């Protein structure tokens, strides 16, 4: 099983992407998509050294909802800041300590922080214990770190590690 179908989740995602790309749901296209989804993971296997396990699918759904909500909110906040006076902005570099261990969790956290209110991941510390973020306009550094840790890091830790 493991050798015949190395990565079932990737197979399904690739098949869906193929169907979207060909923009039809004909049976032939579905079969071709599944074939590609079965063949490609053999070549991509070395990029996925450790197995990805989702522990709590419900938390993942809730996290996705929070993320979508925050992305839209962040866009309005950033738009208002751009239209306001540039002199009034208080940008800052902030070191956010992280407790995540898995590579995948860390990259998701870095990407999330980039799409949410006024922050941007810039650098991962060499010891993998903290991420350097740049915030566009921050009043209270402690509150910012608290938001990142409770709102994004905690659910990610629950989903990908345990």
């Amino acid at each position, binding site marked *: 099983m493991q050798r015949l179908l190395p990565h079932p989740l990737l197979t399904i995602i690739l098949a869906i992407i193929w169907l*979207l790309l060909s923009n039809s749901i004909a049976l032939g296209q579905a079969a071709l998509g599944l074939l590609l989804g079965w063949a490609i993971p053999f070549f991509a296997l070395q990029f996925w050294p450790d197995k990805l396990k989702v522990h709590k699918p419900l938390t993942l759904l809730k996290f996705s909802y929070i993320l979508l909500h925050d992305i839209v909110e962040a866009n309005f906040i950033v738009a208002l800041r*751009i239209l306001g006076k540039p002199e009034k*902005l208080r940008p800052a*570099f902030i070191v956010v300590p992280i407790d995540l261990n898995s590579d995948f969790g860390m990259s998701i956290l870095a990407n999330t922080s980039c799409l949410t209110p006024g922050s*941007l991941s810039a650098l991962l510390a060499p010891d993998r214990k903290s991420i350097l973020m740049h915030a566009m306009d921050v009043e209270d550094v402690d509150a910012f770190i608290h938001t990142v840790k409770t709102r994004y890091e905690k659910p990610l830790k629950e989903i990908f590690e345990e």
Partner: protein
Amino acid sequence: MNIVLEVLLSVLIVTGALFTFIGSLGLARLRDFYTRLHGPTKGTTLGVGCLLIASSIFFSSQGDGLSLHEVLITLFLFITAPISAHLLAKSALHLKVESLVPLPDEAIARKNSQHKPYQTLD
């Protein structure tokens, strides 16, 4: 095409274009590289996302069946925008591009992360 759909499409198109414009305005208007990075990564991504969703709804309503391949570009942009922003910030820090606030020194950042829970670097 009915009137509700037409209003929805018009609103999506104008909002999308407005966000795209505001993102680029941020790129032209803000005062240092690191704050400029925020405009295009957030505003432009959502703006183009809105336009692509409008396109998806428009071609689906044309009667040739569902048109969902625009979702691919939207997803792709949402995945790649943070990555290119991260790489740009990293290369700017590497080149020591000047900023309004003092640049964090890599060594200091590492030291602080070991001894204190967090530290502002200014």
